[in-house]
């Protein structure tokens, strides 16, 4: 997306060369408008960025200074970060978060592709109903079904204290990813699929060889969303992993980290930034896919 504007296009070169009070007035108005818009934008942007700045500055303060309300560190204690990593359990939380987010994403993508493909490109009875059911699943608060699910995982499968009850269901289609990918697949012209079939491709081969390569941006978007969802999830790990600190994720462990360092805001802020860091790094590498995905949910969706 480029910086397109909603205002009428600026006057063509021929008219702007005209001299006279009217042209000068128009020019002055445009400049004032530019200044006004950009001043507001800078002010708002500062409000959005300042929390990160304060969190970072506090994360490198000494223990005592971090409690003082000072805004600028007297001396830079980079060792705070080292200390955070040396906190018992912290590395394990990383491993668990990576496992949950990595496997969760893989499972989601693999199961969403065939379902979304069928919903977008097959004609069959009940297609509309299936779409409505997918949407209503998206709309269901997770708390509504968590109790029976917990009982099944804990009592029948004895998997409480692990992250598997969160990871396994992702192999069976995540409604949000299916919906999003299906919207994306609708934009692929059906001529490509038809010509693949004329060439003798079966439905599965058409999907793997033709549709998946063309749908890469859509697949990247659902993969990113799912990765972030798992990385950020707090409710799920609280339900299933709470009893077993060895299964905690970063998002879940962070709060206990704060409790363990009750007064050390500097450590807590360093840990907070470390929890945010992977998400923000991934965003910078995959900005386009991400913004495309958000747009797709809202506008085409």
């Amino acid at each position, binding site marked *: *997306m480029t910086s397109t*504007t909603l*205002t*009428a296009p600026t006057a063509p070169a021929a008219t702007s060369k005209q001299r006279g009070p009217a042209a000068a007035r128009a020019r002055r108005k445009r400049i004032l408008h530019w200044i006004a818009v950009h001043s507001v934008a800078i002010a*708002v942007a500062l409000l*959005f*960025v300042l*929390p*990160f700045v304060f*969190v970072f500055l506090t994360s490198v303060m000494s223990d005592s200074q971090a*409690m003082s309300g000072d*805004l600028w560190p007297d001396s830079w204690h980079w060792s705070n970060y080292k200390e955070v990593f040396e906190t018992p359990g912290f590395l394990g939380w990383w491993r668990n978060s990576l496992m949950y987010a990595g496997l969760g994403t893989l499972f989601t993508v693999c*199961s969403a592709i*065939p*379902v979304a493909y*069928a*919903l977008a490109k097959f004609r*069959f009875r009940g297609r509309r109903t299936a779409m409505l*059911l997918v949407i209503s*699943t998206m*709309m269901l*608060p997770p*708390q509504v*079904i*968590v*109790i029976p*699910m*917990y*009982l099944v995982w804990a009592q029948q499968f004895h998997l409480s204290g692990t992250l598997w009850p969160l990871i396994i*269901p992702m*192999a*069976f289609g995540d409604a949000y990813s299916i*919906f999003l990918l299906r919207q994306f697949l609708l934009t692929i012209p059906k001529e490509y699929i038809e010509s693949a079939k004329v060439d*003798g491709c079966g*439905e599965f081969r058409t999907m793997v060889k033709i549709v998946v390569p063309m749908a890469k941006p859509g697949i990247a978007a659902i993969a990113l969303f799912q990765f972030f969802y798992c990385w*950020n999830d*707090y*409710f799920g790990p609280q*339900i299933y992993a*709470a*009893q077993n600190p060895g299964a905690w994720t970063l*998002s879940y*462990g*962070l*709060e206990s980290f*704060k*409790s*363990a360092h*009750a007064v050390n*805001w500097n450590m807590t*802020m360093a840990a907070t*930034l470390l*929890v*945010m860091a992977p998400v*923000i790094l991934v*965003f910078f590498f995959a900005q386009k896919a991400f*913004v495309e995905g958000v747009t797709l949910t*809202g*506008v085409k*969706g």
Partner: protein
Amino acid sequence: MAMTLSNPARRRLRTLGFLSPWLVGFSVFFAYPLIATVYFSFMHYNQIKEPTFVGLRNWTYVFEQMPLFGPALRNTLWLVVIMVALRVVFGLSLGLLITKIKTGAGLFRTAFYIPYLAPPVAATVAFVFLLNPGTGPVNEILGTVGISGPNWFNDPDTAKPSLVLLSLWGIGDLMVIFMAALLDVPKEQYEAAELDGAGAWSKFRYVTWPAITPIVMFAVVTGVVQTMQYYTQALVAGKVASGVNIGPGSVIQPGYPDHSTLTVPQLVYQMGFQNFNTGAACVLSLVLFAIAMAVTMLLMRKRSGLLSAED
């Protein structure tokens, strides 16, 4: 090949094959637990002894005797109304602003968008620190200009508004959605309106607004559903702000201070996983479900982005 494709039975089987992951997932992880929630709402069950049928006892308990149900429901509805309204207004304003920016648009867009990505727990812990009454940078700055800042997360009157601030910081997703919708409005319509002598407000009222109404509806519907599930931020803010030395899994009265940040989902967790009152927890789940569904259907009646996605 053409022969096999035209075979309807084969085709049905093929469709089922492609849909099978979702069909299994839908029945096992959606339909079954939903039915089981209804079943348990009529049972007394402490997760150890066999469940016993108690009729409507759980329902009357929740609605008539449970002391925290009233505050939790009121807080949840307060958050739904205020948070969704402010998020939509603020998200739309930011979307309008970003479409008017000509220099450094990418930089501004990133600045507005990045907070949305911050994991909720991390963002909440950071905000409790920033708004810490005694030592936080925000009150420190307010102090230098002679304002004595509020107690934010530590005052029942300002705890929920502080949560709203936190959620407005993460407005990036709505901004992007509105921005895309605004860029989709045909430029010719603005030119035509200008020829008719329309001012900025008339252009918004008669050109922009009708074009983006479905997206606004989409934002409202998804916002309501998301806020009905509001959990992590409220819980973490209450726990961290209370300053009590407690780890995850510990039993505390949620909703610090004075239950002002207690939401229905928190109550579901407390009932189901701390008090082991499965029946009451399932009743609460169903209340949540009923409200979310009712609001969604009400809003979907008008043409929303979700319904127009149907074909």
